[in-house]
């Protein structure tokens, strides 16, 4: 019911017109926690939410309301009188979300809606098959020539899940197919709170080299980098229990022909997220502080903010390491050649031989550095890059929640306005208009209910998604970093082998 949305200021204070000097809250005691008007900070919930002050502001379209919004004001602050009588400034009251009785820090009192306060308690929903699916992306193949050429990748799925028609099958896909898949999933799921893994970035430079047919090391590296990224993207997507069941995903993995994804320029994951961010910026520009009744969301947002900053920093350092390791490999190779030349010109036989051995050792070591640089990159650096991109998606769903809240608030404001208008009409003799008003109100009441439901739903979904995301994050980091350390172990073991072989040669110089 619409009336439960706003809190009972008792009696008829809702529709009470404001007169100069009049107190806004004739019955302050009505608000459970807010008996003293002046004592509460602005963030706390105001019970007499939409109250009387609405009059001042609701001449124009709802949109204008928000255009002028610059400041959050608690309904209880003493300054409010002054503000309001000055005219149409701000005072958009943050409205407390859900139900009934408002208590300031709702987090714990909310048990009726959210059955858990810690995300650890959320259970996995997938009944039926246990998760058993493995996807690999392989065999990049250039199709066509010149600027119309593209890379086709083989996508192989191996699974025992009943969701699929076969156990082991593959299809051919091109990069824009992956982007198309992502854009479909993003448009379906992002706005209701699901963290949709972003697709790999487009790269005009990288791809052009491949198209033009440069068969050199850098374009091979580019293809390998992309292949690996596409594989990780698909695995992340299917690990999501909801996305896995999505028909677009199934079609992507199974069907031999896929309709060409159109205008993927506009729909690259970066582009999509840019759109989300633009929307988020618009919300922020209004600087309506959503009265966050649930500390959990604020905490999480802050947490992800901090995580983002740190991951980017770490990512930059690892990228630098990759670069320097590659340099080290190149410089070691050059030194090896130089040492070989020195050995050639050395006229003491034993020393000459030892120098040649040194050259050989350094040559093997340069290959070792090259391999390690790849480990640095594919294991460590790409993990960090993936998570930096994932966090953008996470931030996106939080922004969508705010948008959803905002939409709900808008409906509520509009409803309020209509109700006031209706009340006025009651004193005129325009039965047609009155009926129209009543109809509109009915419609709006429905919208407000839907808005509240949407908001509850997205909040619930996000809690689950964040829990799942954090679990995955912990698993990913642990698994991959352990793998990375193991690669470092291998390098050291090889180094030991090489130097142990060289030592007797050095000692043999006489």
């Amino acid at each position, binding site marked *: 019911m619409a009336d439960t949305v706003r809190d009972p200021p008792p009696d008829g204070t809702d529709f009470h017109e404001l007169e100069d000097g009049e107190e806004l809250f004739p019955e302050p005691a009505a608000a459970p926690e807010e008996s003293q008007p002046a004592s509460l900070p602005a963030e706390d919930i105001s019970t007499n939410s939409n109250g009387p002050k609405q009059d001042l502001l609701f001449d124009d379209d709802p949109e204008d309301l928000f255009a002028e919004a610059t400041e959050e004001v608690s309904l209880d602050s003493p300054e409010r009188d002054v503000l309001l009588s000055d005219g149409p400034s701000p005072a958009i009251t943050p409205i407390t979300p859900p139900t009934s009785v408002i208590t300031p820090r709702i987090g714990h009192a909310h048990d009726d809606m959210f059955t858990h306060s810690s995300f650890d308690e959320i259970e996995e929903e997938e009944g039926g098959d246990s998760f058993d699916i493995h996807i690999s992306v392989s065999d990049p193949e250039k199709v066509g020539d010149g600027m119309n050429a593209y890379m086709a990748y083989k996508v192989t799925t191996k699974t025992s899940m009943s969701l699929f028609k076969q156990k082991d099958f593959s299809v051919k896909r091109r990069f824009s197919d992956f982007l198309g898949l992502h854009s479909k999933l993003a448009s379906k799921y992002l706005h209701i709170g699901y963290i949709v893994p972003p697709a790999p970035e487009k790269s005009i430079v990288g791809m052009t080299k491949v198209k033009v047919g440069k068969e050199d090391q850098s374009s091979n590296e580019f293809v390998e980098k992309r292949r690996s990224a596409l594989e990780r993207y698909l695995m992340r997507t299917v690990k999501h229990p909801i996305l896995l069941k999505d028909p677009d995903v199934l079609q992507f993995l199974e069907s031999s022909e896929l309709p060409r994804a159109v205008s993927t320029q506009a729909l690259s994951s970066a582009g999509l997220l840019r759109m989300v961010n633009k929307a988020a910026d618009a919300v922020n520009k209004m600087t309506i502080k959503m009265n966050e009744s649930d500390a959990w969301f604020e905490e999480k947002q802050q*947490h992800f903010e*901090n*995580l983002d900053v*740190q*991951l980017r*920093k*770490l990512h930059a*350092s*690892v990228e*630098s*390491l990759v670069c*320097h*390791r590659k*340099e*080290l490999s190149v*410089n*070691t190779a*050059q*030194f090896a*050649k*130089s*040492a070989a*030349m*020195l050995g*050639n*010109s*050395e*006229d*003491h036989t*034993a*020393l000459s031989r*030892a*120098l040649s051995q*040194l050259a050989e050792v350094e040559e093997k070591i340069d290959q070792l550095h090259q391999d390690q640089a790849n480990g640095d990159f594919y294991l460590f650096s790409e993990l960090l890059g993936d998570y930096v991109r994932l966090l953008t998606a996470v931030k996106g769903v939080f922004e969508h929640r705010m948008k959803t809240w905002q939409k709900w608030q808008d409906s509520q404001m509009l409803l309020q306005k209509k109700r006031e208008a209706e009340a006025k009409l009651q004193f005129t003799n325009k039965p047609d208009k009155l009926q129209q008003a009543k109809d509109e109100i009915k419609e709006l009441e429905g919208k407000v209910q839907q808005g509240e439901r949407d908001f509850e739903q997205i909040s619930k979904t996000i809690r689950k998604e964040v829990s799942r995301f*954090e679990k995955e*994050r*912990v698993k990913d*980091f*642990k698994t991959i*970093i*352990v793998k990375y*350390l*193991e690669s*470092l*172990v291998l390098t*050291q*073991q090889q*180094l*030991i082998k090489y*130097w*142990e072989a*060289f*030592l007797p040669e*050095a*000692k043999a*110089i*006489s």
Partner: protein
Amino acid sequence: SDPRAVNVDLQTDATLQVDISDALSERDKVKFTVHTKSTLPNFKQNEFSVVRQHEEFIWLHDSFVENEEYAGYIIPPAPPRPDFDASREKLQKLGEGEGSMTKEEFTKMKQELEAEYLAIFKKTVAMHEVFLCRVAAHPVLRKDLNFHVFLEYNQDLSVRGKNKKEKLEDFFKNVVKSADGVLVAGVKDVDDFFEHEKTFLLEYHNRVKDASAKSDRMIRSHKNAADDINRIASSLYTLGTQDSTDLCKFFLKVSELFEKTRKIEARVAADEDLKLADLLKYYLRESQAAKDLLYRRSRALVDYENANKALDKARAKNRDVLQAETSQQLCCHKFEKISESAKQELIDFKTRRVAAFRKNLVELAELELKHAKGNLQLLQSCLGVLKGNT
């Protein structure tokens, strides 16, 4: 000539022992305390110290080079000028950037730069010391008067740096020498030994130069990678303190690991620098000194051949024959004297070179092994903990 015992070890002779017992780095100069222990009658005391600066070492070296008596010896190469500029610049940049980093990061970087400064300082002390030890070990040079003054005179030697005119003169001397060098190198020597040495040294010197440059680059990349690992360790530490999940312990453990492996990587770079890069740099200088010896011998040979021609001419004209004969004898004597000592010097050079390379390559391999094993042990023990916990 009696076979001289080849003395590779520079410290065994008790009659004259020289070392740098202390050094002080001031803003724009380094003061070395040169400490001498000697049983030779030339000195007033048996043990004494003086303070010397880099310019005084150069003065001593140049006095050897300019001394005709020493034309037949490989003059120990002068130590390079102490160069703290790069290190000082880094310290200054660090000071400027202090505001943009956390206190821990700043302290860490400062410690590292200070360690780097100290390493450069130790190296320059070592290089000045090696020069003095080479002189003290040389049977002829150790008796040089300037050397004794250098060791004993406890006042400033007042050898100011060369002024512009002198520097220019040096420049032209070098140009003439290299032009001559090319000329002289072209003349085939009748003596197989020297012919071989000439060919060998020309090529060897160039290749050592190349190897020295490449080893420097390789080591610099190594240092850069170690710096990156340092930053990675810091970031992981911050992540560990911030995270609310299981990962916080994990990150802290990995951060600790990288802190330690980073130190080892830095040591690897430092040891490669000491055992490989410095070795190559030193033999770059020594091989140049050997080339200079060959050049002086070639000049003496040319002078000798010219004196012969002059004598023939004089005899033919029967004019100034005595003068020509004396001149020819002098040149002959000079040439033979240089040739004799040069041969021994070049043999000693080879022996020293082989021994130094052996020592350094063995030590290099041993250190690389030690560090790789250290790294391995750290990695494996950390992995054990991480896997055990998950």
